[in-house]
């Protein structure tokens, strides 16, 4: 491979890995939107809280990663339930803007709690996955990247199977499609809402742990959640497949743009690129690649 080609492939592969984590978190976002019509602006804070809980369990309580991971999942389920029960259920039927403001408020609260407990210093995960880089025909990828990609894909696959085949998954799809009809089939919409928030919190925490493992964590990890917006806008707000493809695409695009354009702008392109993409999509394809046209734009 020519050096130019090699550079390109390298950028795509790294972008793909980060993109897979975007996909995972985007999936959580879309799930809540589909089932409950709520745009959750606290998605990034779910990522943040999940990552910190896992880190703390490992560092402070000295338990193994596997256990810490498992307990973080349990914690996320509880967090999802609490958030749904305490802040969102009372708002059923309120104007959409009210609900959005509440999720923004929730984001601030969660962020403040994290700052209170863990400060703003960057913290580094103890190495969980092997770091040694692998070399495949000149393409160098750290093993931790491959593990991350593997984990993200695994969780997406589990979710896809759950959504397609489990009774709860089918009930969720039914509720997303037609709430009244679902209720008249005996499906409890409240239960479906609660499950949606739980799953969303869980996949976000997984995303936080994976990305924290690569970059370390501090409060700005919540901004990671912001990148979910370009991903879901690209994919279409109400499309699960769209969320996955949107996440991967944004990951690759930002890495390519960063890799090629940073030298002209003195860095930071990667941070801006997804939002440039976002604006462009809104101009040319406002419902995303896989979205439904009648969705309310806010």
């Amino acid at each position, binding site marked *: 491979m020519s050096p130019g080609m090699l550079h390109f492939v390298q950028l795509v592969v790294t972008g793909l890995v980060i993109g897979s984590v975007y996909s995972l978190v985007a999936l959580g976002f879309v799930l809540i939107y589909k089932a409950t019509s709520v745009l959750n602006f606290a998605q990034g804070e779910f990522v943040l809280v999940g990552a910190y809980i896992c880190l703390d369990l490992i560092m402070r309580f000295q338990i193994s990663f596997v256990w810490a991971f498992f307990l973080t999942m349990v914690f996320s389920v509880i967090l999802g339930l609490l958030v749904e029960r305490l802040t969102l259920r009372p708002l059923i039927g309120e104007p959409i803007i009210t609900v959005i403001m509440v999720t923004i408020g929730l984001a601030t609260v969660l962020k403040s709690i994290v700052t209170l407990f863990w400060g703003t210093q960057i913290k580094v995960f103890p190495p969980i996955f092997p770091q040694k880089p692998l070399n495949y025909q000149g393409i160098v990828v750290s093993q931790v990247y491959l593990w991350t990609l593997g984990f993200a894909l695994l969780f997406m696959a589990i979710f896809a*199977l759950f959504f397609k085949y489990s009774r709860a998954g089918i009930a969720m799809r039914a509720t997303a499609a037609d709430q009244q009809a679902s209720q008249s089939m*005996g499906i409890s919409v409240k239960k479906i809402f609660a499950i949606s928030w739980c799953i969303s919190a869980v996949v976000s925490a997984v995303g936080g742990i994976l990305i924290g493992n690569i970059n370390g964590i501090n409060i700005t990890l919540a901004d990671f959640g912001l990148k979910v917006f370009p991903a879901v806008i690209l994919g279409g707000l109400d499309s699960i497949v769209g969320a996955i493809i949107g996440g991967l695409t944004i990951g690759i695009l930002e890495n390519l743009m960063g890799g090629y354009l940073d030298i002209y702008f003195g860095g930071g392109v990667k941070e801006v690129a997804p939002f440039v993409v976002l604006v462009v999509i809104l101009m040319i394809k406002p419902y995303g690649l896989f979205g439904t046209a009648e969705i309310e734009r806010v």
Partner: protein
Amino acid sequence: MAQLEIQDLRLSFGGLTALNGISLSVDTGEIFAIIGPNGAGKTCILNCICRFYHPEEGRITFEGKEITNFAPHKIARLGIARTFQNIELFQGMTVLDNIKLGAHVHLQSGFLAGGIYWGKARKEETRLRREVEEQIIDLLEIQAIRKKIVGTLPYGLQKRVELARALAMRPKILLLDEPMAGMNLEETEDMARFILDINEERGVTIVLIEHDMGVVMDVSDRVFVLDFGTKIAEGPPEEIQNNERVINAYLGGSDAAFSKLGM
């Protein structure tokens, strides 16, 4: 014996009174028709029973149990199933998936594990599929479209699928909101036959809202006539057909009215 009993139901939207003190009682096993002009409040009665609307006053009891404050999904679990005036199917799913969702209520295995093919869940799934395939799909003659996406089907067939889905809930009582609306003669006759079959073979009580007077007079045991949210008559079809008030209120007493009432 009265299976479903409604007492003095009142419902309004802002200044508009939709139901003005409605009382009715449906016996186990009968076909009970509710008729009345558009906007009379027929659909509102069903929506109150299903708890989509919350009446300001009144009591609803099912099999002796007061259900006025139940959650909507609990109503379904009691054995009350319905179809909708404007079809409410899951448009993106197949006919079979739609119907199986109707049977959702009856699956006993874990909510999260169900459908994953092992043990109890698998056995249940198989039993369910057999029941759905052999009984409901056969009964309603929709074998040919089992695997089709609902949204691609013509209107008449969608109405039939919606009935199949309601039937999969193994209901004790079936509330049908204009099941023949928009159908041609042949489809209407098929639908009437299905309703009679369901009632006779499965012993399901039927509450039927319908505009086609021919059908109503043919299949019903009793007819309840509603106008502006008030009851104006109730009785066996032959009595309703000759009721002066019904003829006047319902159809303005014209000659066309008489032919529409099947006379």
